[in-house]
């Protein structure tokens, strides 16, 4: 390709050569990050910021899920209620359920992210075991309230396995 373009005419040869040179040397020089960029990236290294952000995202997800599941809930006395009563009932159901699930998912996201951040900083390695340990802590914390120690063990194992599967699924897609 280079031979043909440079042999066509003398007038266009220099322009073509510079184009080839520009294409081959399109590598930019190394540019060190500015202090604002370093600070912007450093924000995400802070465990508190990360866990709060994860908590907010979990809360949003919980809101959406609760709204969706609450809308599917049908009242028992469906025939005797008027349309407006049905609407009010469904709206209350949706609101209540979405708030509950928002809280639950926010706590789950916060605890998981905080645990993973702390463990990864302590181990100084980026592994799948960080995810497993964080999942165990989250599952154990959530199940310990209702199940006691045995429930905490099962919750730990279950949530750890779940989070490892999700992490592997996400990694494969990257």
């Amino acid at each position, binding site marked *: 390709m280079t031979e043909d373009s440079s042999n066509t005419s003398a007038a266009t040869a220099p322009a073509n050569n510079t184009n080839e040179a520009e294409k081959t040397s399109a590598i930019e020089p190394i540019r060190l990050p500015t202090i604002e960029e370093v600070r912007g990236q450093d924000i995400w290294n802070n465990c508190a910021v990360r866990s709060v952000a994860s908590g907010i995202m979990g809360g949003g997800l919980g809101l959406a899920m609760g709204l969706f599941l609450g809308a599917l809930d049908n009242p028992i006395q469906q025939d005797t209620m008027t349309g407006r009563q049905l609407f009010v009932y469904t709206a209350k159901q949706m609101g209540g359920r979405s708030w509950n699930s928002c809280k639950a998912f926010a706590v789950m996201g916060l605890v998981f992210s905080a645990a993973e951040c702390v463990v*990864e900083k302590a181990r100084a390695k980026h592994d799948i075991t*960080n995810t497993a340990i964080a999942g165990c802590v989250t599952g154990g914390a959530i199940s310990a309230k209702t199940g006691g120690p045995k429930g905490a063990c099962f919750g730990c194992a279950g949530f750890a396995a779940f989070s490892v599967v999700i992490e592997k699924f996400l990694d494969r897609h990257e």
Partner: protein
Amino acid sequence: MAANNNMPTALDKEQIFGMAEKEMEYRVELFNNLTQTCFAKCVEKRYKESELNMGENSCIDRCVSKYWQVTNLVGQLLGSGRPPM
């Protein structure tokens, strides 16, 4: 430093320049060794993303801190009259 005994006692520009050059070479060598050691130790060979994640960040922090401490310590020991160990 054996050349100092043959030269006059007043330090001239060339001697200072030679010392500065040696110092610069030492610093550059130190930096290169530091980055190579800590990169080989902390960063995985398979690159999954372009930015340093948190584990690698804290690993590099620790590696550089230790390397710097050891360098200073060994330099002090070597420069302080060489006690027999």
